[in-house]
Every structure is written in C-alpha cells, then in structure tokens.
C-alpha cells in the first residue's frame, strides 16, 4: 500500500522534473529566437521609414544608389521594399542600387524599410579600424583660429569630443567659434568642422547619417551624428548635446562621408524621408523574428502562428490550468469546501471580465435576488427539473434587467451582470436555497461565502497581467501544473482546516 504510493510519487516527481526542464528550455528558446519577453510588454513599435527619391532624367542611363540601414545592429529590419518601375534592383550591405535605361518623365522611387528594435544588438557596434586620418588643409589664419578653439575647448566639460561639441553649442555663440564656421551652417557643416578639429587632435572621426524616429516625421535632410574612434572603439555623439551613445530612436543609414543617395543620369534630384510608427503585438513579430533566426519551422506549429482571434481564445484557455490548481489547493490542501468543485473558478473568470468590485457586487445582487425569488417559488411545489429551469430563466431575466439599468444609468456594476455564467449562477441559487432549507441559514451563507472566498483568491491569481502573459507565452508551464496537480492527488497530509477541526484531539498528546 505504502510502497505503491511511493512509486506513484516518484513517477510523478520525475514527470514534474522533466516538465520543468522542458519548460525551461523552451522558455530559453522562445526568448532567444522568437524574442518573447518575460514581462507583458505586448506591443513592439515598428517604424516605417520611407525614402522618396525624385529627379528629372537627363536622357542618359540612370543609376541611383540609396543608403540603407545596416541590418542586425541597433534595429532589425522586418521588411524592405523598393517601389521603382522598370528599374533593375540590386543591393549591397550598405546601399540599394537601381539602374535603368533613360526615361523621360520625372522619376519617383520609393524605398521603404520596416524596422523594429533589436534588443540583443543594441550597443554592440563592431569596431573596425579607422582609415588613416586625413588632416584638413587650412591656411595659417584658419589654423591659428582652430588651435585657439581647441585651446578654448579645454575649459568645457566631458571628453575631447564632447568639449568641442559643447563649445559649438554655446548660447550666445562664441565669436571665435562663429568665425570658423561658414555662414548659415547646416548640421552637416557643423559636423564637418568638428571632424576637422578632431583630426587636428589626431582623433579619427566620421559623420553618421540616419533618421531620428519621430512619429509622423517628414524631412528632406537626414539627421547627423558624429562617431569618433577612441580607446579602440567607435563612440557616437549627438552634435548638439554632446551626449555619448546611440539614442534609442536613431536608425543609422550610412556612415562616413558618402551621400545618402546618388543619382547619375538625373537632375534636380531630391530625397524626402517620412517616418511612421505602428504598434504590433510582440507575438505578431515573433514569426518574423523566428524567420530571421531560421527557426520558422518550429514557429509554424506553435499557437502563436494561429489567427489572432484564436490566439485570444487560447490565451483565455491558458489561464484555466492555473485556476484549477488554485481550486485543487484550496480544497485538498487548505480544505475549504465550496458549492460545486469548479464553480468558484468560473465566478473568478467572470470577475476578470467585469472588474473586481462591480462584478462582486453584481454577483451578490443576482444571487440575493435569485434566492428570494426561489424562496417564493418553493411554495409552488414544482418538480425539480422545471424548477431549476425556472431559476435559469429567472437569472436570465435578472441579468437583462440589470444590463438595461446599468446602461441607462451608466452604472457599470449592473452592466457587468452579462458576464456571469447563467447555468452556474442558477445552480448556486438552487443549492443555496436547498442548503438553507435543509441545514439552516448559517450553513447556506457559510457555503456561499466560502465559494466567493475561493473565487476571490482565484481571481487575484488569474487577473495578474504578468501571470497571464507568462502562462500564454510559455504555455509549457501547463505541463508543470499538470504534474503538480497530479502530485497533489497523492497528498495525504492534513488539510489546513483539519488543524482546527481536530485541534481537540491533539491536545491530550502534549
């Protein structure tokens, strides 16, 4: 007898251990290849950057090259496409190349790239050796001014690069500095001057062009930052604030002096960038991530590849095992007896939909009204099945009335009536009134209170966003729960309530 119990437990414990290992591995796999999060960060921003190149052909063969963001660095490229009729398209790591014979009309080429945050890649810009520093060619006067500026920069804060950047962004601007800059200087000019000054100090620097991701942004000029090679690493700086490091919202299209786009065989060319932000659920992106990681085959057979409405249904289902675990613990370990085994669980599920207080008040209201009407019904001496059916219909009527009242008075407590399971509610009313008649009001109220208590506990477990996310994202956890539940099925220790119930028996042993 005892021997058998032990072997069952060992078997189940092995199962539990295996299921934990499987879950742990799959969690690792999902986080690594599918980009799942441990926290319910459900939406990932997807940025659409569109570069619109337009030019008037000159009648020669046309060649266009557009800088493209380098993949697998700070942002991952979700999708990339080029809209260019009658062009041959080829691509290199850094640029999109288009070519075609001559055209007549003004040409419009669209290059669109969808990007999303690449969490893993952030801050790991590879540091290739810089080319030899090209010293700027300056006349004597300019050189003097340059040296003067460099001297002045020593009073600024930060490292060498930051000192110079700060100097250029003083308000009001320093006269000496201004004299060194061309009139009406653009970001590009500023960056070039700073790079030249750094060259004088033997620091290799380069311009970084890209797009700062701002919602609904439209611009003709790319945003510019400066990268300097110091301590064997490329460090990136904001040219206004001097802040070090790549901002979260900056996509690098191109590094070094090359242009963002080149057109040969065209004139009056322009490029216009527009940025659009859209939110997608991270589960949606998981498929793309899987594809990028060459893991799409496994993904195809997971629940995350299902249509969204089915995913939502499954997300709801994934909560059940946890709720069941709560019920099992409440009954077999704590020892609270409730009306119907899974009734509290179903009430808890309804509470999730209705919100806690409004749901609880509404439910008590339905049960209260139901029990009163049921008491009146019992005078009619109906047969059991018609009577319970009558209670079901009554519950439906009560729910309707509450819903109408709730809508008209804008009273959410009453509106939440719609979410309660009708049959379950009817049975609770029926059981409550029978218990009331047979075992007295105290026992009936006790049972209802215990049921609601278990429902409340279950509610607080399943309402937690974090827990729901974990249960859905790492659905193998249900296997773990399965084995825990089965192991609890072999629990032969005392229930918590028995420690009170049998308290009088323990005493004399002392």
């Amino acid at each position, binding site marked *: 007898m005892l021997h058998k*119990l032990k072997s069952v437990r060992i078997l189940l414990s092995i199962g539990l251990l295996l299921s934990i290992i499987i879950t742990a591995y799959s969690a690792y796999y999902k986080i690594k290849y599918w980009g799942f999060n441990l926290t319910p960060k459900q939406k990932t921003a997807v940025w659409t950057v569109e570069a619109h190149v337009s030019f008037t052909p000159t009648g020669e063969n046309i060649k266009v090259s557009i800088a493209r963001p380098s993949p697998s660095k700070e942002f991952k490229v979700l999708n990339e496409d080029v809209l260019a009729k009658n062009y041959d398209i080829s691509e290199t790591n850094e640029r999109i190349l288009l070519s075609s014979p001559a055209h007549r009309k003004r040409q419009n080429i669209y290059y669109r790239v969808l990007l999303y945050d690449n969490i893993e890649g952030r801050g790991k810009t590879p540091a290739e050796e810089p080319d030899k520093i090209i010293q700027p060619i300056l006349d004597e006067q300019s050189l003097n001014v340059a040296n003067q500026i460099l001297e002045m920069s020593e009073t600024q804060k930060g490292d060498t690069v930051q000192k110079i950047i700060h100097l250029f962004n003083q308000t009001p601007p320093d006269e000496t500095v201004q004299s060194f800059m061309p009139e009406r200087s653009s970001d590009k000019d500023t960056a070039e001057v700073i790079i030249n000054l750094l060259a004088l100090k033997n620091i290799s620097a380069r311009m970084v062009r890209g797009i700062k991701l701002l919602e609904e942004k439209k611009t003709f000029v790319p945003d510019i930052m400066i990268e300097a090679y110091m301590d064997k690493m490329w460090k990136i700086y904001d040219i206004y604030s001097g802040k070090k490091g790549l901002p979260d919202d900056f996509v690098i299209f191109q590094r070094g002096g090359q242009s963002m786009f080149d057109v040969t065989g065209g004139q009056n060319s322009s490029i216009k960038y527009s940025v659009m932000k859209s939110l997608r659920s991270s589960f949606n992106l998981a498929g793309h991530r899987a594809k990028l990681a060459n893991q799409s085959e496994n993904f195809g057979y997971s629940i995350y590849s299902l249509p969204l409405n089915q995913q939502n249904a499954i997300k709801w289902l994934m909560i059940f095992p946890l709720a069941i675990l709560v019920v099992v613990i409440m009954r077999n370990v704590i020892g609270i007896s409730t009306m119907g085994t899974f009734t509290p669980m179903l009430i808890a599920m309804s509470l999730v939909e209705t919100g806690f207080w409004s749901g609880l008040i509404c439910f008590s209201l339905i049960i209260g009204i139901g029990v009163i009407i049921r008491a009146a019904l019992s005078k009619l001496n109906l047969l059991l099945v018609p009577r319970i059916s009558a209670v079901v219909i009554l519950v439906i009527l009560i729910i309707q009335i509450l819903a109408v009242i709730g809508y008209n008075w804008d009273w959410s407590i009453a509106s939440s009536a719609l979410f309660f399971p009708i049959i379950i509610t009817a049975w609770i009313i029926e059981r409550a009134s029978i218990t009331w008649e047979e075992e007295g009001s105290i026992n009936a109220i006790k049972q209802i209170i215990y049921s609601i208590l278990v429902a409340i506990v279950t509610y607080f477990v399943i309402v937690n966003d974090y827990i729901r996310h974990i249960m859905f994202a790492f659905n193998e956890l249900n296997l773990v729960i399965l084995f825990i539940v089965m192991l609890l099925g072999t*629990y032969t220790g005392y229930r918590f309530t028995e420690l009170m119930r*049998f*308290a009088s028996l323990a005493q004399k042993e002392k």
Partner: protein
Amino acid sequence: MFKWFPEIVFPSQLRAAGVLGMNARNYDIIAHNNKRRLYPLVDDKVQTKALANKIGINTPRLIGVIEVQNKVDNFLELVKNFDEFVIKPAHGSGGKGVLVIKKYTDKEFVTASEKVLSYNEVYQHISNILSGLYSLGGQYDVAIIEEMVHFSNQFQDYSFQGIPDVRVIVYQGYPAMAMMRLATRESSGRANLHQGAVGVGIDIQTGKAISAVQHNRPISIHPDTGANLMGLQVPLWREHLEIAVKGYDMTGLGYLGADIVLDKFRGPMMLELNARPGLAIQIANNRGIRNILKNIHNNYPRGLDWEERLNYVLGVAKS
C-alpha cells in the same frame, strides 16, 4: 457555537495523536479498501436492504418503492395498512430527504418533529426524491417507503425528538470505532454532527460511552434533556456489532460505516451502510483512528467468518 479565534495545532501534533485526515482517508484507506464497483451496493438502499435480508441483517421493513412520477399518487394505497411510515430516497446520504410520518389522515401528515404537512407537500417531497434532489450526483432516484423505527425507551433521555443511531466503522471486517449520534433541538431532530447533534464515543468492547462532543467541544450532559452522557450504555451491544461486522461480508467494502438504530420491538436494525464514512467519529471518541486501523491491518487474523471476527474483537478486551 461560533469561535472567532479557532485553535490551530501543528500537523505533527495530529500525527502524534494518530488522527486520520480527509486526504489520507480518501487515498490510503478508501481507495485501497473499497472497490468502486461495490459502491452501488451501499449507495442504493433498495439493493442494500435486499442484500441485508439475504445475509440475515435486520432492517426496517420495506413497505414499497415508488419508481416513477405517475405512481406517486399511489403512496396512500401502499401505506394503508400502516399507522406510520418513513419516506426516504434510495440514493440519499446523511439523512437528507428522509421524511418520518408518525400520524396521518388523508389530508394531514404529522412528522416526527410534530410538523403538519398537507397531502400536496408529501406528494411534492416524493416527487422531489424521484427527480434526484437528494441523490448523490443528482441522478434520477426512487423513493423508498418503509416502516418507522420505534424509538427505544432506553434512549428517551438522550435524544431530542430524533432517533439516535449508532455508527460503527468497520475496517477489513473488524469494528474499529463507534459512536452514537444524538439529536438536539439545535440539530432539529437530526443526527448530523455538523448541524449540532451530539456525538458520543462508544467503547468497542463494552458499548459504554467514553466521551461526548457537540460542535467539536467536549460535553458531559445532553444540552436539551440534561441527561448524563457518560452514563450511556448501548444495550444489545454485541448485536449492534454483529450487524456492523456482517456488513463487511455483505458488501466486501474494506472500510465502511454502518448506521444502526435500536428498535423497541425488533432490536438493532441496520439503517444504511456508508462507503465513505466521515471523520467526525474521531472527535466524538476524542481519539485518532489511524493507529487502530493500522493495528487491524497488521495484526488481526485474516480469513475468519463474521462470528469469529466478532469474538476476536470482543476477546481482545478480555485478555
């Protein structure tokens, strides 16, 4: 009756006292001793009664069985030769749905607790039984009408209205523990401990009271009648045990509870058998049952007939 700060003890204390918990009862005792297929024998009182009569166990005489709704109207016809009768569901438990009529005319029915019911109310009650209101799991049921048990005078002072009964736990054929359940005003004539009936632990060898509890607290006098509970001695104790022990042979259930009442004229009678007897009996006896069951399992002889087992149990005391 309601304690705001219930006492809590450590599990180790209960283990030391040999208290059997609900989980252990279900897993270690019931699952290993009671085969599922034997349950219908005790869950259906019609079957139980037939089996009992075959093996020679006294039960309240069967007046009739009502199986379908359109026969409900016949019940007066069935009971016409009896002055009093009991209606109960065949699949009921814990005394649920039991209606005791001690006096009646065509229109009025007087219950054991002096309540007067109309014909319609009794009709309704039977029809409720048939629709499964009182049965385990709510399936359709049949109503049993049987002779009323005549309250033995010996217990007059010990019970308020209801009939006291003796519950004996039989383990692997041997009586392990016994208690008597006495109705109180609070339990409104019922013998259910959780409704406030008094539980009196009865010594297996002698049939004498050991201890008594109401609502899990020790008492020594009956709260309504004031009778000294410690002076309680169940008459015809051996005959009581005989019924309990035979219950094992009759059903094959290794762990069962036999509910026995003492009739003034016919002696001890078996009311029903229970395949899942509760654990409150430990509280009434102020003693854990676990070690008793273990002792029976490990040390008591196997393969004896009911008489030998009964003698063995009663003999253990003498030696």
